[in-house]
């Protein structure tokens, strides 16, 4: 790498009393990229972000921005800006004053503040709203003002703490695309935290999956989706059917597992094959499963199943299948074509998948 990464964390750790909220997290974010941290509620995302912003001191580890250590630098002196979960726009000021706040603190002359505020509001698509009050804006507009308020300072890194959490679904979908294009427009490094995997998958160049204070995997959306490093990532990123059972046979990377319900399934082991007799979990994506009304070839994963219910949702329709022997259910993407179109409750179909598209992981702690 020729230029140093914008943001580097080295073994960053944070302890609260006897509880470790962030556990030896290391990562690098190159200039101009969109980095997401994805994890369930309470896994330490906010704590990590607040350490980067300077509101919390790491217990140990180092933090570098543009190659300089930030450990002894106060939050007001760091070249990072943060978009807060509830945006934290100042209700006592109008929009122009809000966006100009940071520039005023730096002692920029009033005339220059005015032009720079005007320019940044134009770039976020809200020209001429300087005189409005905060409560006169819609949710999406507030969102953009909050970003403008940070971007006007031209920070090296912009931190965003679940900024879409407070918006309704429709607006969230819209803002996802908007955020990504704003990031491309400003060409600033974004560090975005969320518990919503679709937000992370759609927007990010790189995603870190966080669980219980640790980073389980860092990779592109595709890598996380198709090559998850462990069972947690496989279950958390994207939808997946999960089966637990015992390993019965191993053939190279191919593992055969008998599920707790008694069905025999095979899948590909990615990171270290489990030993025979060990507990293991198998993950199969709903779209990796093929359905047919007639029994297909001699695929080891083919079983006849009964339709439990059809969850119609246009192109994203799903069907829930039940294994008559084990009682295990399977969620499958339902193609809206051919003879599957008329599928109804109680019908029998054959579900099969290529074992190379299913993932097997040894159960942790077993």
């Amino acid at each position, binding site marked *: 790498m020729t230029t140093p990464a914008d943001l580097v964390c080295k073994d960053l750790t944070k302890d609260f009393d006897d509880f470790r909220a962030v556990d030896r997290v290391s990562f690098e974010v190159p200039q101009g990229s969109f980095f997401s941290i994805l994890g369930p509620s309470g896994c330490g995302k906010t704590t990590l972000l607040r350490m980067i912003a300077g509101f919390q001191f790491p217990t140990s580890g180092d933090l570098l921005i543009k190659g300089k250590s930030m450990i002894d630098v*106060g939050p007001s002196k760091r070249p990072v*800006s943060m978009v807060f979960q509830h945006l934290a726009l100042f209700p006592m000021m109008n929009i122009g004053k809000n966006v100009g706040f940071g520039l*005023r603190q730096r002692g920029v002359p009033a005339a220059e503040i005015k032009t720079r505020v005007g320019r940044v509001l134009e770039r976020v698509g809200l020209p001429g709203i300087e005189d409005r009050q905060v409560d006169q804006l819609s949710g999406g507009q507030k969102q953009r003002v909050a970003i403008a308020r940070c971007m006007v300072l031209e920070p090296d890194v912009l931190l965003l703490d679940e900024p879409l959490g407070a918006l309704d679904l429709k607006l969230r979908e819209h803002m996802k695309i908007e955020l990504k294009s704003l990031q491309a427009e400003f060409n600033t490094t974004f560090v975005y935290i969320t518990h919503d995997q679709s937000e992370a998958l759609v927007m990010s160049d790189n995603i870190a999956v966080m669980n219980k204070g640790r980073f389980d995997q860092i990779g592109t959306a595709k890598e996380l989706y198709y090559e998850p490093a462990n069972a947690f990532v496989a279950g958390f990123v994207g939808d997946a059917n999960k089966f637990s059972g015992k390993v019965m046979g191993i053939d190279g990377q191919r593992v055969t597992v008998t599920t707790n319900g008694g069905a025999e399934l095979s899948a590909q082991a990615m990171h270290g094959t489990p030993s025979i007799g060990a507990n293991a979990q198998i993950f199969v994506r709903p779209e990796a499963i093929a359905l047919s009304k007639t029994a297909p070839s001699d695929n080891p994963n083919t079983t006849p199943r009964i339709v439990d219910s059809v969850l119609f949702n246009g192109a994203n329709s799903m069907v829930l299948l039940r294994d008559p022997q084990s009682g295990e259910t399977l969620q499958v993407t339902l193609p809206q074509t051919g003879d599957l179109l008329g599928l109804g409750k109680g019908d029998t179909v054959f579900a099969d998948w290529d074992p190379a598209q299913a993932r097997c992981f040894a159960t942790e702690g077993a």
Partner: protein
Amino acid sequence: MTDKSKLGFYLLLMPLMLWLITLIILPHIGLFMVSISEKIGVRQYETGLGNYAVFFNEPLYWRTFARTAFMSIFTTVLTLVLGFPVAYYIAKLTRGRTKTTLFLMCLIPFWVSELVRTFGWMILLRETGVLSNFLQYTGVIGGPVEFLYNDGAIMVGLVYTSILFMIVPLVTTLDSLDDSLIEAGYDLGGSDYSIMREIVIPHAMPGIVSGCIVVFMLSLGNYLTPILLGGKDSLWFTGLIYTQFITRFNWELGSAFGFLLLALSSSIVFIGLKLSRQSLTETMGR
């Protein structure tokens, strides 16, 4: 509204109306009537503004009046300056049990009566009191010094009596200030001073104003503290009213004084609200 619910509405309104009419409006009408009657002989009265003229022609009266007003304003400012950091500390820098404990500690002085509290201050401040003895012991002063019976003593007493009424509204408004606003201020490069001035104080303004109004009125209308701690030389306007009513039996002049005090407090509160650009409903509605 149906007739029945109308009746209920008026019945519920009755206690409030009774209180307003019998305890506030009627006495003030009476006071005003008395204040505009001049005594020209034994049991002979004439309507006129003579009592008010007496007030303006006698320097002792209007000087005491102005002094009371200024000292009350000063007390209010001092209470605000002392109370704000305390309230900020309680509201923003502590949480849970510590917060409740600190808040209760502000209340403790109010478990004893104002009289006892004031005597406590007298024990501390008098010539043979704790402070004087301590300073002599440490060698700061040579002989005993009287700390009582001056304006400083009055100020101390008044601030002490009224600071709770400043802290309570301040803690309430500061509590409602979202911490992330303060953090956002620091994140955008703000200094302690600019965050205080641009974010915290504008947000706390309704609390500041309502605290100031209450403290100002309490100080202006206080009788016990200025008399006990200020002694003979430090006059307070309520003391003058007392003298007219009780010592001189001059109810007419006393009433005029009472009315002037009412006008004074109303106009100063009005000016204060105008200067801070707050409305009374907004301030008290919080």
